[in-house]
C-alpha cells in the first residue's frame, strides 16, 4: 500500500513552497489589496511560470510537463498556503476543463500559451445569483451565438480566455470564450475577497466553441473540487500555524494563552478537521489520478471537509487572536475573507455534501 504522494510530486511541491515562502504570503496579498491598480503580482506570476507551475498537467506535445494529478494537487495546496496573489488556480482549473472537455484542436490552440504563461485562463459557472454548479444556467446558446452573464469569475479581469457554462441540451455544459473578442465584455466585480480580482463576463451572441458534453462538465466539477480542496487545505494550514504561533507567544494572566485548554482544544480541533480533510483530499487525488469511479464521492467529501476545516480555522484564528486579530493590520482577515471566496468558488458546502450522499446512494444501489 502506498497512499502517499510520490517523491517527484513532493519535490515539485517543495520547489513551489520555497518560491512562495519568499515571494507570496500575507504581505504580498496586502500589497495587491492596498493598490487598486494592481490585480495581481506579476513578479510572482513570472516566477511561478518559470517554475512550470502552469505547465504541470499540460501534455508535452503542447509544451507542458505532462505530469499527473498528484503534482497539480500539491501545487494547489501551496497556492492556498501562500494566498498567492496571481491567477494560478484559475489557469489550473481552466487547464483541467480543456483537458477533459476540450477538442484536440482547442487544446492545441490554448494549452501552449497557458504552459508558457502568455495566456491566462479562467472558469465561469455562476451568474451572480444563487445558482449552483449543478443547476442549468440562464446563459443560452442560439444560432447567433452565446448570450448571458457569468459572474463572479475569479481572475476574469486579467484572463485571456474562459471556460463558461451554458444550458446544454442535456444539462449544463462548457463553452470556450476568447475574451479578446468584443462580444465578451469583462467588467470588474467587487467581492468579499479584497486580494483576488473578480469579473463579470457579459456575452452578447458571442462566437464561442462548445467544449464537450454535459457529462464532461460533471467530471470537470469533480476534478475542480479536488484542486480547490487542496487550495483550501493549504490556506487552512497557514491559518492554523498563524493561530498556533500566536498562542505560543501571547501572554494573558501571567501565562502563554496556549497553556489554556480553551485555546489548546480549539487548536486541536483545527488540526483534527484539517487532517480529516487532508485524508479525503488525498483520496480525491488518488481517484483523480487513477480515474477511479470513487472520484465523485471522494471529490465531494474532500470539498465538504476542506470547507469545514477552513471556515472553522479562519473564524477561530480571529477569535484566538482577540482584539488584535480583528484589526485591518492583522493578517487574520486574509484567511477570514479567503474562506468566503473558496466557499463561493464552486458551490458552497451544502451542494457538495448532498452530492456526496447522492453518490454514496448510487454506489450502494450498484453494489446491491
Amino acid at each position: 500500500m502506498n497512499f502517499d504522494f510520490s517523491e517527484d510530486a513532493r519535490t515539485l511541491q517543495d520547489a513551489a513552497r520555497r518560491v512562495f515562502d519568499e515571494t507570496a504570503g500575507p504581505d504580498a496579498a496586502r500589497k495587491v489589496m492596498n493598490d487598486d491598480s494592481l490585480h495581481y503580482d506579476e513578479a510572482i506570476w513570472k516566477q511561478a511560470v518559470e517554475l512550470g507551475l502552469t505547465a504541470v498537467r499540460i501534455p508535452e506535445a503542447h509544451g507542458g510537463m505532462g505530469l499527473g494529478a498528484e503534482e497539480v494537487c500539491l501545487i494547489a495546496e501551496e497556492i492556498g498556503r501562500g494566498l498567492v496573489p496571481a491567477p494560478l488556480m484559475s489557469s489550473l482549473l481552466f487547464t483541467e476543463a480543456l483537458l477533459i472537455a476540450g477538442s484536440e484542436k482547442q487544446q492545441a490552440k490554448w494549452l501552449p500559451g497557458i504552459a508558457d504563461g502568455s495566456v491566462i485562463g479562467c472558469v465561469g459557472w455562476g451568474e451572480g445569483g444563487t445558482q449552483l454548479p449543478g443547476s442549468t444556467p440562464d446563459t443560452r446558446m442560439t444560432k447567433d451565438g452565446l448570450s448571458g452573464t457569468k459572474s463572479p469569475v475569479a481572475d476574469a479581469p486579467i484572463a485571456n480566455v474562459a471556460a463558461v457554462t451554458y444550458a446544454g441540451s442535456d444539462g449544463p455544459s462548457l463553452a470556450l470564450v476568447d475574451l479578446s473578442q468584443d462580444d465578451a465584455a469583462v467588467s470588474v466585480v467587487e467581492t468579499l475577497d479584497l486580494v483576488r480580482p473578480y469579473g463579470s463576463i457579459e456575452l452578447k451572441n458571442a462566437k464561442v466553441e462548445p467544449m464537450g458534453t454535459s457529462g464532461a462538465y460533471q467530471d470537470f466539477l469533480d476534478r475542480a473540487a479536488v484542486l480547490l480542496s487542496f487550495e483550501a487545505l493549504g490556506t487552512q494550514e497557514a491559518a492554523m500555524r498563524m493561530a498556533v504561533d500566536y498562542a505560543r507567544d501571547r501572554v494573558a494572566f501571567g501565562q502563554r494563552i496556549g497553556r489554556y485548554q480553551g485555546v489548546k482544544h480549539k487548536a486541536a480541533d483545527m488540526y483534527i478537521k484539517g487532517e480529516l480533510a487532508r485524508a479525503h483530499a488525498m483520496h480525491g487525488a488518488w481517484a483523480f489520478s487513477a480515474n477511479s469511479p470513487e472520484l465523485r464521492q471522494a471529490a465531494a467529501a474532500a470539498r465538504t471537509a476542506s470547507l469545514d476545516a477552513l471556515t472553522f480555522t479562519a473564524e477561530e484564528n480571529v477569535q484566538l487572536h482577540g482584539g488584535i486579530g480583528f484589526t485591518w493590520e492583522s493578517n487574520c482577515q486574509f484567511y477570514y475573507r479567503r474562506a468566503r471566496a473558496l466557499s463561493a468558488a464552486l458551490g458552497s458546502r451544502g451542494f457538495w455534501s448532498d452530492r456526496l450522499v447522492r453518490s454514496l446512494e448510487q454506489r450502494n444501489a450498484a453494489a446491491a
Partner: protein
Amino acid sequence: MDFNDTPEEAAYREKVRAWIAENTREYEGLAPPRTNEDFVARQKSWQKKKYDAGYAGITWPKKFGGQGRGPMESIIFSQEEGKSAAPTGLYAIGLGMCIPTVFTHGNQDVIDRFVPVALEGEEIWCQLFSEPAAGSDLAGIRTKAEKDGDEWVINGQKVWTTNAHLCDYGIIVTRTDPSAPKHKGLTMFIVDMHQKGVEARPLKQMSGGASFNEVFFDDVRVPDSWRVGDEGDGWKVALTTLMNERLAVGGKPGGSPDWKMLMDVAKEIETALGPASEQADVREEIAKAYINDRGVKLTQQRALSALSQGKTPGPEQSISKVVVAKQMQELSRLALDLSESQGFVRAPEGSELDKLQSSYFGAAGLRIAGGTDEILRNIIAERVLGLPGDLRPPKDTPFKDIKPL
C-alpha cells in the same frame, strides 16, 4: 406572569413617549450627518433637551444632577427613545460608565467641575483602559504615570477607545507603582483629550470600518487633584466602571440579522426541491436561531421583571453575549452560503445581504469585545457555577518581576 407595564410604569411611559414625540420631530427624516461636527452637534442638541427637561441621568442621585429614579424608568425612557428619531450613542460610555465612576470615586472639586457639564452634554467622555498587552487580562496595564510635584506624567498607549477623536475628557487607568503586585500598582486619572501629547488615531477594523481609536500619550501632565480614587486603587475603581459595561455589551447590535431574516432570505432562494426555507437543514438553522435570539431576549425580560419588582436580576444574564455573538456569526455565514455567488459579491448598500455580509465580520468582533467567548465561559463557570479558577502564577509578585510562564 405578564409582560405588561405596572400602572406606574405605563404612566411614565405615556409621559416620556409624548415628550419624545414632541421633541424629536426636528430629527425625523434627517440624512445621516456628513461630518463629525454635524454628528456631534446633533447629539449635543438632543442631550441638552433631555437635560433641560429632566430626562438626563435618570437613575443618578439628585445631588449629582440626576433624577434619582429607578432603573425601570431609565429603561423605559431608552426603549421609547430607541423607537424615535432621537440621535443617541455618543454619550453612552461617558454618562453610562465614566461619570458614574467620577462621582463615585472622585473628589468634590472634580465632581463639581465635571459632572454637571457632562450631563448637560457640553463635554464628551471616553474610557481609556485596554492596551495592546492588556486585553482580556486588563490588569496587565503598562501605560505609566509618574509623580512630578503635584502633577503626574503619563506615557503609553491605549487601544479600542470608542470615539476618542470626538471626546473632551477621558478616564485613564495607569500603572503608578511597577514594584507593587499587578492589581495593586494601578491608579485612575481624568485626562484632557485636547492636551498636547495626546494623539488619537482611528483603528481600522478587519471589516474596513473604524469605530475605535488607538490613543498615544507622550509626557501628558495631569494634576494630582484629577486622580479618581486613591493611589494604587485603580483596579478597584476600574471595576466600578466595568460593572456597567457588562450590562452594556449585553445583546447584539440592533437591526442585526436574526431568524426572521434567515427565513426571508431562504424563502427567496429556489432550489431543485423548492424554496430553501422548506429544506430541513435550513429549517433546523432557523429554529436554532430563534431559540438563541428569542431565548436571550426572554432572558433579558426576566432581568427587567426583577428590576420592575425591585429585585436584583439573576446570573442568567451572563449568557447573553456569548450566545448572540456566535449565533450571529453562524447565521450570517449560513445565509451567505445559501446565497452562493450573490452572498460573495459585495451586496448593495442597505440590502439584506449587505447586512449579512457586515454582520459576518461584525460578529467576529462581537465575540471578542467586552469579554471573549472564552473569558465569559470562565466567568459563568466560576462566578455562577462556583468552579475554581484557572491555575495562575502567584498574585503577589511585583509587576516588574513577573516572568510569563
